[in-house]
């Protein structure tokens, strides 16, 4: 807490401005008093709110995680609901005006199928003779909610006989919207696991290396060099071949992610070390040391807050990198496999030329990935600005 009082630079500027008459006097006083009385977290929260995009990003991320949490309820279908009649069917248009020009509650038409006799491509058109209003809180496919209880309640659906594919279907006739929603459960949670492992390792080892220097630093740096040279591809191949087939896909993937994140903390550790090396020469560190503060305390209370902003940026930047990493693994054929679904699995299916060229709605998962990545970044940006001790 005493730190706040030590370096109120942002407040300083404000007070200067106030004294120079740029700000109404009363406000300066109030604000400064509130400012000094606020805790570190309140300060951060206050600054965070100033960053408009970060706020939006936080809301978006919140919605995404909420959607993942309520996945089975939001998704109209399960992951293995194949439908041979609706293979590669485009998104179902939702209408509010019917053929007679009458306005009505949102509805969809029935779907008619026709096969092009030359190219054998299935074309799906609206069958205007059948109208299915969209219903909310409908009964549908049964599922186990969060593994806790059975339910068959779904957020939305259309009546018996109708079909609604918000984002179209894939090559197995499965509802893409459902797969995206259910896939987000994996894609939004797995990276966090891997990340936390490598983040903690990178931070701890990097700090030690940078603060102590000398022989400790040398040993750690050599260790990092060894780990950096580890070829991950054969390692991954060996691991996935060695793990027996009875281990469920998701567990196997989690296991491998964790093993690989044991190798991937090196980048962070190196940056942390670089930062430490310059910070440890700062006068206030020297002062602390002379005052007999323990090494651990110096690292924790004086050094790490000194570049917290960098760590936060790097961490929020790593989440998207992990999400992308998962899709790359799928591309190499080493990632998850359907019916276990993640966004990487969906993108792997989308990346075939014919899907990009003919069934472009299969790229919708990409939008989710991009939105997530951008949100994480803006969110991180906001945090950075908030955590910055100088502004």
């Amino acid at each position, binding site marked *: 807490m005493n730190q706040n009082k030590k370096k109120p630079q942002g407040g300083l500027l404000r007070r200067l401005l106030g004294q120079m008459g740029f700000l109404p006097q009363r406000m300066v006083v109030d604000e400064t008093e509130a400012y000094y009385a606020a805790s570190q977290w309140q300060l951060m929260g206050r600054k965070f709110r100033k960053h408009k995009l970060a706020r939006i990003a936080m809301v978006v991320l919140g919605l995404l995680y909420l959607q993942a949490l309520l996945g089975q309820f939001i998704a109209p279908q399960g992951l293995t609901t194949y439908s*041979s009649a609706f293979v590669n069917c485009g998104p179902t248009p939702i209408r509010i005006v019917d053929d007679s020009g009458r306005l009505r509650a949102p509805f969809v038409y029935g779907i008619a199928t026709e096969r092009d006799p030359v190219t054998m491509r299935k074309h799906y058109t609206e069958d205007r003779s059948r109208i299915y209003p969209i219903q909310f809180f409908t009964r549908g496919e049964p599922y186990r909610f969060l593994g806790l209880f059975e339910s068959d309640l779904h957020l939305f659906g259309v009546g018996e006989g109708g079909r609604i594919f918000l984002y179209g279907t894939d090559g197995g006739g499965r509802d893409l919207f459902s797969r995206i929603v259910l896939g987000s459960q994996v894609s939004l949670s797995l990276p966090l696991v891997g990340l936390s492992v490598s983040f903690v390792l990178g931070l701890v080892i990097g700090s030690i290396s940078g603060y102590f220097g000398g022989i400790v630093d040398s040993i750690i740096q050599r260790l990092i060099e060894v780990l950096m040279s580890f070829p991950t591809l054969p390692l991954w191949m060996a691991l996935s071949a060695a793990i027996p087939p009875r281990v469920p896909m998701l567990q196997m993937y989690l296991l491998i992610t964790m093993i690989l994140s044991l190798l991937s903390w090196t980048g962070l550790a190196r940056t942390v070390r670089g930062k430490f090396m310059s910070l440890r020469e700062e006068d206030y560190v020297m002062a602390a040391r002379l005052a007999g503060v323990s090494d651990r305390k110096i690292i924790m209370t004086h050094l790490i807050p000194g570049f917290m902003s960098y760590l936060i940026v790097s961490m929020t930047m790593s989440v998207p990198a992990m999400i992308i990493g998962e899709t790359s693994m799928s591309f190499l054929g080493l990632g998850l*496999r359907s019916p276990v679904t993640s966004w990487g699995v969906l993108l792997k299916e989308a990346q*075939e030329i014919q899907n990009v060229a003919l069934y472009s709605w299969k790229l919708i998962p990409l939008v989710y990935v991009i939105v997530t990545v951008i949100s994480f970044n803006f969110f991180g940006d906001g945090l950075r600005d908030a955590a910055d001790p100088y502004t």
Partner: protein
Amino acid sequence: MRKLTLLLLSVLLVCLASLAAAELKEAPMLAELVAAGTLPPVEERMPVEADILVVEPEDEIGQYGGALQLAWKGSNDRWWAGKMTEEPLFRFKPDGSGVEPNVAKGYDVNEDATVFTIYLREGMRWSDGMPFTARDVLFYWDHLLTKETFGKSIYECYYSIDPDTGEKALASFELVDDYTFRVTHKYPSAQFLERVAIDNKWLFAPAHFHEKVLAEFIGEEEALDVAAEWGFNDIASLGKYTGYYYWTFQQIPTLRAWVASNDHEAQKFVMMRNPYYFKTDTAGNQLPYLDQLDFNKIQDDSHIELGVLSGDVDMAVFGVDKFTILKENEQKGGYRVLNYGSTDWTSFSIQLNQTVKDDNLRALFRDIRFREALSIAVDREEFVNLVYDGLVDPIQISIPEGLVNYQEGWAQRWAQYDPQKAADLLDEIGLPWDAAKEYRNNPDGSELTLTIHYGSNTLNDMGTELLKKYFNEVGLNVNLKVLDGALWNEMKYNNELEIAVETIACFNVTLRPETVVPVRVLTPWQGHYGEWVATGGASGVEPEGDVVKILDAWKLVSSARTQEELDRLGDEIIKVFAENNWVIGYAGPAPKLAVFDARLINVPEHVIYADEFRDLGHARPFQFSFK
């Protein structure tokens, strides 16, 4: 009978030749070289007039010139370049019924089918201008094949078998004159020529070249130097690449229509026309029409697809799953998509390893009721719609109508979706449910899990995913395990595959038996039976049950004398195979999509695309031409 056909054929050829070959014509690029004096005139480069092979073009007399743009992944795709340019001694006729002379001019065979006299073409030359004679055949036999210089054991087709004792005897070769050689078998070998056409397409090698590189002629040390010069590490590699995979090396003369002209690891590997090629069209134009084949290096299969769509690739073959995207862009990309036949019996099947190591699984896999249950537990109608977009038939594995040994009714056997009956069958076998009523256990109460091994691609991924669902529905717990090529092979040879996703392709079981008859380790359902047969019982698993019947019939095949006898034996083998359904098919065979640039003429509308016929080589690319 044979002799008569041969006689008629030769007469016909001679007539055609004399009609057309009043004057030989050649490609402009060669005419320039002749004019410049660097190449002898075309008459001196080709066989004597009567021995030229005259080819009737598919549609019309073509025009010289043009480079065919092709895609390949580098030298590991050597067979792609190899098969389409291959010139075997005898090649399969367009309809696949028996062989016809190609490099050879003709042959005689005695009554017993033991002595084959084979005639070559007088005046024929290697691509470097040196004469091609029967000595090159004898050289191949004496110095390459029987000495295993290129690392392959002597092919089965050169052994004849004593029908009584089963004893194998190696054939003998003798030189008759410059253009004639004789092969003598100890026991009858009625299918010798067909089997040569499959096992050992080229039965000749440029002696004058190999005498300069083989250790036998130039000594170990010198040979090592040559190997090093070629970039090889050892003499064995030199032997393999010069004696076997020879067609991608520019230094080695061949008889092919196009010969390698640069480094095969280059970004673009070019095969240029062979000025000494021995075929003409009916107007006396020396073939080939196309100047060169350009093999452009790619890294991923999707590049072939993109190349075809954009017109950068002039010729390629695809699976049926690319049908829609290819058809949609036919106009824009300027190509034609042709449906070529295949010898596939199915496009998606699982093979139950009959010698699987686990005792419980082995008993199950050998139980015909279990195989029936696995077959009828799957809704094939839905399966083909989801995996193949409904482009193939929802039928059992079976020989397509029109191929040898077609079996009526096999296609429909166990093809009807009946999960109830499947469950009943599993009950009958005695597979009890576990405590949670979720999955079935082994009869002894231990946990039962089926592992399906497969190589990952879009079709297999979807197919196995569905199988897992169907099998789960009848109470069978299934694990899916993806294997890459190396691991697949490793496990296959170690008898570790359980249920393997692999199709069966075979155009005539008496000629190419290994997918149906366990003669060596190859086809997953046979497991290690093949090992047992190949090693004469030294290792592997001893065949039992109906597999023995197949092997017994196979023993009679090699000593059969008439076609009728062969067909009957083939039928017998296939019947046993069909009754047992060790391989369960869920989707009917699909055509191969052969894509050709729209400007290309003389491309046959339909051929059978099969390895035995050398894939696209069967479409006779040497007479393709650009309009």
